[in-house]
């Protein structure tokens, strides 16, 4: 199987994701330049972290109109597994594949640190390697990770089991301590923490490995 990694102008975790998948897990990948439309033969697609299009206007706002994302929308709606990490999560909300928006951290600082999380995998395909309520540590690295959504919609997301990752000690002011969200079908996951930076014991833990290995069976 092959996993596609989308590359926007300004992406900077695309190579980290490739290293984690290929170097740590032996999983073939294919880079998808933002102007491509061909998603054939891909078993999953990852939107990596970074600053797509320089974060101009809003994080993810311009990326949403990239040709590759027009195709990705249909791919996700047909049940294709899609993972958005950090800037990728911001892009998924701008694209409307996940609800809400990511806004400036409460304390204004860019936060770059290991963060304790609670996992509630439910039906999320990317998190089946984790136990219900399991506590893990993944690094975060963002300035705009404060999740914002209408309070009634947040309640609905909680009831539907879409809030699959929560901060144990909320670092950025996210509503509902949301660190990661899935869609009701469970094939799309967006999260602010970086699982690809926790796949090798030399660089800070192994807690992200099961997430990236989720689809390998």
């Amino acid at each position, binding site marked *: 199987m092959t996993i596609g990694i989308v590359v926007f102008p300004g992406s900077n975790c695309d190579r980290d994701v490739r290293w984690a998948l290929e170097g740590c897990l032996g999983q073939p990948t294919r880079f998808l330049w933002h102007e491509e439309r061909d998603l054939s033969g891909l078993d999953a697609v990852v939107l990596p972290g970074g600053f797509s299009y320089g974060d101009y*206007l*809003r994080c993810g*706002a311009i990326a949403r*109109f990239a040709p590759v994302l027009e195709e990705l929308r249909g791919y996700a709606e047909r049940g294709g597994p899609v993972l958005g990490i950090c800037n990728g999560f911001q892009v998924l*909300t*701008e694209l409307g594949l996940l*609800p*809400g*928006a990511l*806004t*400036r*951290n*409460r*304390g*204004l600082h860019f936060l770059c640190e290991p963060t304790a999380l609670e996992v509630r995998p439910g039906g999320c395909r990317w998190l089946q390697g984790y136990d219900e309520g399991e506590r893990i540590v993944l690094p975060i690295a963002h300035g705009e990770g*404060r999740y*914002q*959504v*209408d309070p009634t919609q947040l309640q609905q997301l909680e009831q539907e089991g879409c809030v699959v990752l929560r901060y144990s000690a909320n670092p950025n*002011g996210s509503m509902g301590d949301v660190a990661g969200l899935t869609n009701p079908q469970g094939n799309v996951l967006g999260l602010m923490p970086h699982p690809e930076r926790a796949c090798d014991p030399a660089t800070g833990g192994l807690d992200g490995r099961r997430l990236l290995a989720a689809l390998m069976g």
Partner: protein
Amino acid sequence: MPLYNARVQVSLRPSVLDPAGEATRAAAGRLGVEGVTRLRIGKAIEVDLEAPDRATAEARLELLSDRLLANPVIEDWSLEVVEAG
């Protein structure tokens, strides 16, 4: 074709925390400017647009504001349009 000058004002919705605005408000106090009780940071976007008539220009600008310039989940927008002299 007539040219229209538009100014789109994008503001954070009142329910959304604006930490940058709060930090700026605190700095206003340190500058010695007293009495600032509220300070919210948005953006103003200037757009020049050609269209056959005003109604068409407004319709295009509304679409632009709602789908690209602002994110309605967290932002409100308002629009001013004048025909360029």
